[in-house]
């Protein structure tokens, strides 16, 4: 007898149904299958109406984040064998509105991403012309921000964040980590502009340092660490502004 496994999947079609429901599917169990393989099997062989996002199936495009037994996971990197023979419950990432089935609405993140200015900012007149070649950056300088540049925007950290769950004005882990990624980049001069958003009331002060974001991060970005570093540097800014008349900036 072929081994099988059951998946209990969250279904919701807002234009056809008032309430979400769960639908259970039985799929073949294969040692090397990930949860996404099982969902693709359902889509192809059992029920074509199931909607979800996926693409690269190698943990780098960030599309396929879902709740697996209540924990935010990349389903392309979550193996059935770690749950077999028990039933698996698959739901859309928590903390977001549901568009349909396993598809969340992520407008809020896209908006926040743009707000933190995730691009290199140079002071007026300090941009190097292309003919001048690359900005020099030593391997040690690269290491300063490299970890924060690994974020794939998969949204698992938002789904895990207790602050975001209560108050979605919170900028959130991935966006703060990304702001830190640019702040720590030796080529960037835009930290002051980003700190205005980050240090505002929706920003880092709301983080209670539960650290769940870093636990679920599939790429070891450590957004909790980024938030802590950001808090420290904002506190230093505050002291400089209050205690040093010229704001601690070079004049």
């Amino acid at each position, binding site marked *: 007898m072929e081994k099988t496994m059951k998946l209990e999947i969250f279904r919701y079609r807002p234009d056809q149904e008032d309430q979400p429901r769960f639908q259970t599917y039985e799929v073949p169990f294969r040692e090397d299958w990930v949860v996404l393989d099982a969902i693709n099997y359902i889509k192809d062989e059992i029920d074509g109406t199931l909607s979800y996002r996926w*693409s690269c199936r190698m943990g780098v495009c960030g599309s396929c984040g879902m709740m697996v037994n209540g924990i935010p996971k990349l389903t392309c990197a979550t193996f059935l064998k770690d749950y077999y023979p028990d039933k698996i419950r698959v739901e859309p990432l928590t903390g977001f509105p549901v568009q349909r089935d396993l598809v969340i609405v992520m407008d809020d993140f896209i908006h926040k991403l743009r707000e933190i200015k995730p691009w290199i900012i140079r002071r007026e007149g300090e941009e190097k012309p292309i003919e001048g070649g690359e900005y020099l950056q030593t391997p040690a300088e690269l290491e300063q921000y490299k970890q924060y540049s690994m974020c794939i925007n998969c949204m698992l950290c938002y789904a895990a964040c207790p602050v975001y769950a209560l108050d979605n004005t919170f900028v959130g882990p991935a966006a703060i980590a990304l702001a830190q990624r640019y702040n720590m980049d030796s080529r960037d001069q835009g930290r002051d502009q980003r700190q205005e958003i980050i240090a505002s009331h929706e920003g880092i002060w709301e983080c209670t340092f539960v650290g769940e974001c870093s636990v679920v991060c599939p790429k070891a970005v450590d957004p909790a660490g980024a938030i802590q570093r950001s808090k420290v540097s904002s506190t230093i800014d505050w002291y400089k502004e209050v205690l040093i008349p010229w704001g601690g900036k070079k004049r």
Partner: protein
Amino acid sequence: MGNYETYKYDVVVVGGGGAGLRAAIAIAETNPALKVALVSKVYPMRSHTVSAEGGAAAVIKENDSFDEHCSDTILGSDWLADQDAVELFVKEAPSEMIQLEHWGCPWSREPNGKVAVRPFGGMKIERTWFAADKTGFHMLHTLYQTSLKYDNVTHFDEWFATKVLVENGRCQGITALELRSGQIRVIAGKAVIICTGGAGRVFPFTTNGAIKTGDGMVMAYRAGVALKDMEFVQYHPTGLPGTGILITEAARGEGGILVNKDGYRYLQDYDLGKPLEVTDSRHPVKKTMELGPRDRLSLAFMKEVEKGRTLSGAYGEYVHLDLRHLGEKKVDKKIPFVRELSTKYAGIDPVYEPIPVRPVVHYMMGGVDTDIDGAASMPGLFAAGEAACVSINGANRLGSNSLTELLVFGAIAGRAAARFATEHPELDLTALQKQGADEQERIAKNFIRKDGGYERVATLRQEMTRTMESGAGIYRSETSLKETCNKLAELRGRFSNILIEDRSLSFNTELTSALELDLMLDVAQAIAHSALARTESRGSHQRTDYPDRNDEKFLKHSLAFRTDGAPRIEYKDVIITRWPPAERVYGR
């Protein structure tokens, strides 16, 4: 489906991967008064550029020269690349790469802070820039994040483009399905750039993500533009069996070796030079053995299978990619993603065990026929990146040229489209709206409201991919290709009985899967018929019944034009500037 809306832009960019983002930024910077719509069926950071690993080639070091990069690329292409395009590409590459550095791409560095380069297959001198082994990921995120800075670029994320709109003999926009609402909208534009990437998903075993279904290629094809050189499909020599997940060529650039079941470095039997000991400081020798071009390495694998010298597993034959001699430190520093992927998806830690690998469909050398400015034959229509065929890749692309190609030709096409839009300000909005209504009706009638269908999308898709592998794979013949062509015609017929059970308008992925299959069937036909007509072997196109290259007859690009039946195949000359065709020699 309700009323449709019309959006009006100066330039519409279809596709939000590397080429599309670079094009959008180029337009925004050329003329901040121009309004750009960036339309993508996924959020741009999901685009398949994200999966590219090894690096991007550009001449920057003192021991290198433009001519060396040109001649490597042309030799790699088996002389099918247009040499004027290659020269332009090579010349523009360094400044594009430096531009990306200025935008924040975290390139790996030398101790003195300069950008580091690594060796790559088919390249005589090391010129491949890299960001560890997540180069595509970092390039894509850098471009996407930088694009957010421009107020004149509007992102239409998760809008699925369905058709190029032509009025008065000129491309004037597209229709797109807004996935959230299920509505078809007209996005009018004075110029349109297709940057939708390749179509690896027409094959069963591919490194390509699910989204790579050739959408934009077919939109152009259906508007009467030729698809060029579609028979040239690149098999990357090192994919994981089963999943097809890519193990980057950088693994070999850093010194990894390929061995058969006897532990023998079999590439030495296939005219790729002689191996040096891995402990020899001169290993790996460039353009030799493991650093030969991808087409030759994939062919060598097939020959080893014939000789019975490969290993057998649950997913067929494979060989070993051995990195053990590199040591943990080098693996973690230079190719950490290789370790992560192998450990997770093959259960193999390459620091201690060799990785099972086999050739896997990776890249389409062919695409929308464009000139050196990225302009297609249809006025107002442009293309760049893997979706396009300029052509710099000819019959076989060299690893690390495609990421650079995104930048160079994305920017060139963006600037050309901006010029075109400025010179052609008029739009036939009434006629475009009528076309939008017709497209909405087509999709409703053939899919959403369709009754009585019985063919499952997945079934037809599997039959399509299977026949592509068996008849139009690494080795092809007249018999195998004819069988595939016939099968594809049968599938095209059966597609009219497609079953759509999902009647929901909101994020209906059964609908988008059906639309993608519809497009892929056209791509598959263009590939198979172009391959049938080319009775020679060149680069990645290997005919068992015509094993030799035939320059007299086929030093030409094939052009596939869509008809109601089989595509019509025509030819045009390859542009030769300074590198006359010669024997394609590696390792001697």
